[in-house]
């Protein structure tokens, strides 16, 4: 498969790039551990006071944090670096460097989404999977193959939604090339650290259906703990596909606006 071969090539290049700057490795490691530490600490402190919080136990909340961190790590691994290279004052659309992406005989959206990798995010991914694993281990016997399967599907839907939202925000670069629109989204994404059920009703609706950051984390975590209401998984998949289609359409409309930089 050509696209897989290209992805492999991009990853190899990224590893070579990262090895050129050794110090970055240690700083990234420190950052990952701090990010993880503060997240876990908050939850442990909370659950030392109460047993459950609106039906969420320490184990299921840890699993949710694990899902949140895993999605964040996957974003940092390739979606983020690739899409963020488009926007901003030194971004490819502003400088006209995007010309070279358009000239390649490869799908533009694929290239824009996969060409830059940040291998140091693998550290985040390992730590995130560790938290997720700890949460799952604490659930113990209750994990059934059916639940794990539902979890994997929910996780895939969550990742697709995250990608679609980032793609849509990045596509705005074609209307305003200097601005890093994904910053707007980052503030909202923080809310996905906690189960949507903990938020007031109206916010819960927004986080589930309008800017579905809640769906990304809550649904996979609920799938693991068996608390997923019927139909929600199918709803999440449908939502993910709709968001993906919408974001792709927006990106393609934006592409037609691209005027390249002067000379």
């Amino acid at each position: 498969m050509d696209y897989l071969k290209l992805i492999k090539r991009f990853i190899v290049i990224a590893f070579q790039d990262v090895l050129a700057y050794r110090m970055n490795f240690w700083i990234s490691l420190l950052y990952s551990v701090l990010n993880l530490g503060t997240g876990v600490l908050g939850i442990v402190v909370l659950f030392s006071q109460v047993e459950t919080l609106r039906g969420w136990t320490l184990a299921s909340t840890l699993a949710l944090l694990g899902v949140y961190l895993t999605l964040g790590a996957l974003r940092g691994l390739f979606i983020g670096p690739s899409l963020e290279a488009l926007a901003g004052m030194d971004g490819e659309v502003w400088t006209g460097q995007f010309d070279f992406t358009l000239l390649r005989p490869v799908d533009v959206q694929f290239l824009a989404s996969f060409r830059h990798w940040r291998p140091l995010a693998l550290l985040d991914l390992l730590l995130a999977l560790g938290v997720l694993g700890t949460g799952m281990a604490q659930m113990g016997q209750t994990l059934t193959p059916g639940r794990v399967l539902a979890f994997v599907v929910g996780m895939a839907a969550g990742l697709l939604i995250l990608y679609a939202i980032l793609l849509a925000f990045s596509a705005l670069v074609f209307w305003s090339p200097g601005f890093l629109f994904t910053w707007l989204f980052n503030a909202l994404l923080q809310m996905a650290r906690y189960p949507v059920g903990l938020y007031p009703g109206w916010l819960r609706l927004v986080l589930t259906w309008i800017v579905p950051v809640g769906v990304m984390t809550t649904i996979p975590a609920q799938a693991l703990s068996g608390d997923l209401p019927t139909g929600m998984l199918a709803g999440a998949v449908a939502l993910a596909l709709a968001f993906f289609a919408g974001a792709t359409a927006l990106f393609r409309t934006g592409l037609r606006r691209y005027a390249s930089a002067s000379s």
Partner: protein
Amino acid sequence: MTASQIVVKNLCKTYRVPEREAGVGAALKSLMHRVYRDVEAVRDVSFEIARGEFVGFIGPNGAGKTTTLKVLSGLLHPTAGEVRVLGFTPWERRHDYLRRISMVLGNKSQMLWDIPPLDSFNVLGDIYHVPPAEFKRTLDELVALLDMEELLTKPVRNFSLGERMKCELVAGLLHRPDVLFLDEPTLGLDVSMQARLRRFFAEYNRRSGVTVILTSHYMADVTALCPRVILIHHGQLLYDGALQGLAEKLAPFKLIRLALSGANGQAALPPEADVVEQENGHLTLRVPRATTPTITAHLLNTLPVVDLSVEDPPIEAVIDQIYQEGKVEV
């Protein structure tokens, strides 16, 4: 004549650009109410280019050269007009089309900066589906032609501009394009590197039969490489033909060089003749093309002429005049 590989008919491209006056007040006003202005970058340009031709695309800054190249390479949609390159409509950006063209830009790099060029080349090889054996053969050939063996394994970040340009050329030619767009490839290079790249372009064009459109502000590039030039100014095509014919057709004047014996004959010159140079009895006059024969006869009759020659002005001077005056009287 071979069938045309590039056909451009009545190409127009208009940009819509926001416009505002200087100052904070105007900036704030433009936040609420933005005024746009239409800029016609290319106006009704038509030409055809046959396979293997090496065509120079010249014109002053902002003439519309790069815009035209960007339409031809599929980066921009035109506002009006018809364009076919290799039988494709460029802005549809079909992969079969993109695999057969290449664009090398003097002011933009497609290399990855922190790794050796060989790694960037490998990525391009995969992107363009170049079979490994062909990839190696092409790379070896280009590296030999450009004499850059020792550069392959050093990080691009440390390269000089000339070394980096060699890499850009390899990157642009690895997939053996049929049509090559060169946009100011010698920009900022020293004289000997310019000459070296010129030799490379000529040799590569001869060997591969690639069709090339070159834009450059260095007339030496154009005179050395392009039997045919297309001149555009203010988005309009002013001339399309042999380089030698450019002066003949577009310069409304000729130069008369005189050697005089003894006295300075300036007082006897007809009013249409401008003195361009005057030194030790040698005079160079600029005269309107149409009146050249009568002025020459007049000079021979009235001045102690030892030697006289009539020439077309040098190409640089013609181009300079066209660029400055914006139009020529043909």
